[in-house]
């Protein structure tokens, strides 16, 4: 399992991997917002956490279609499915999701504080948004894995996956943003409750998502 994790991390870093695509997309979205909204610093700091979350969510969806498709195209997926007896397929999916998250989504979380400065956010708001992204984005990956497993046989499944997955990620977005607002000085509400719900969503989806994606892959081989 460690070998699978390391292989997927290596692949995301090597040429053709998606590690930087997401970050560059995230940067492009956040950097253009202040130009569109205009130089109203108060407004920017007020919408900052929400924009960071929306940008991160869309950037997360960007590389999801390759999660299983790359393995299917070179035949590795057959062998991963056949190894079910030794490594339960749901666990294999879980490890692949973790590797995808560490390779493609973790850079977004690392870049978020810097991009928060673009949005004139205060330090506590930046810290809270980065923390909620760290806790919440794995949930997006696990939901996305189900979409990626369902659409694994479709040659241009990327858009379909985004459409399938986006409605399901709305709760994560809502609780992530409300926790970020709870901690920042511009918002109202509390940080702890929505943050705990966000953590619960991630833990819940880590199990449900892996099992559902494994089922879809098991029955999607042809």
């Amino acid at each position, binding site marked *: *399992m460690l070998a699978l994790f390391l292989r997927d991390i290596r*692949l995301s870093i*090597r*040429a053709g991997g998606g590690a930087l695509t997401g970050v560059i997309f995230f940067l492009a979205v956040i950097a253009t917002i202040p130009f569109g909204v205009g130089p109203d610093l108060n407004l920017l700091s007020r919408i900052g956490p929400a924009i960071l979350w929306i940008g991160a969510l869309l950037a997360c969806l960007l590389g999801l279609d390759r999660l299983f498709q790359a393995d299917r195209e070179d035949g590795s997926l057959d062998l991963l*499915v*056949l*190894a079910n007896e030794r*490594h339960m397929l749901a666990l294999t999916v879980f490890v692949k999701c973790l590797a995808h998250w560490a390779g493609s989504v973790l850079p977004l979380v690392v870049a978020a504080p810097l991009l928060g400065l673009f949005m004139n956010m205060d330090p506590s708001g930046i810290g809270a948004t980065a923390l909620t992204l760290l806790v919440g984005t794995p949930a997006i990956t696990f939901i996305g894995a189900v979409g990626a497993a369902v659409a694994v046989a479709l040659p241009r499944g990327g858009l379909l996956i985004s459409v399938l997955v986006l409605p399901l990620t709305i709760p994560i977005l809502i609780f992530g943003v409300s926790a970020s607002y709870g901690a920042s000085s511009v918002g109202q509400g509390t940080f702890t409750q929505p943050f705990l719900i966000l953590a619960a969503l991630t833990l819940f989806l880590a199990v449900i998502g892996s099992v559902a994606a494994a089922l879809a892959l098991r029955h999607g081989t042809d």
Partner: protein
Amino acid sequence: MRLIAENLGGERGGEPVFSGIGFTLDKGEALVVTGPNGVGKSTLLRVVAGLLPARPGRVLVEGGGEDFPTVASACHYLGHLNAMKTALSVAENLRFWRSFQGDSGQANSAGEGTPAPGVEDALKTVGLGGIGHLPFGYLSTGQKRRVSIAKLLISHRPVWLLDEPTAGLDKASEGRFAGLMRAHLESGGILIAATHLPLGLEGVKTLRMGEAD
């Protein structure tokens, strides 16, 4: 151990491709599946491996013990795709499969396992020693095929399911591969190969698909 297929049928996209195929292979026996294109040779192998459901019929292994309770856990499936990443080096690819599929070798008569050959040794066996550092994508078609044949050696499985194993191989490699298959059979392995090229194996069972009905 023994591999049994009873009254197998297979379908692709809801269309039945073949039906009523049955065979029994004891250890040391091989089955060569031949037939024209599109008759369902690859589908048969995927049904046997368990990647596609058998409709109707069933496939089972007897005497596999705790290590190999099902065909899926007992088999190496060599499809027409190589299951290697072009961005990784040959050795990285093989090391991954070795640690993912387990590096236990064949158990001897006393039941003690010895480790399967290492990545370098397996590459030397298929005549590709010293290229482990190259990215897999740089290799030629035949070399890629030989690397995935090396994948059969680095972890022990009693059943080999081979789909067009010699496609793209030159004469010398074909001979070398025939030797590997013979060694596998002599050590008590089971082998099913779908091919229309002669494999250089004597005394094997053949299954001609598409002629009986």
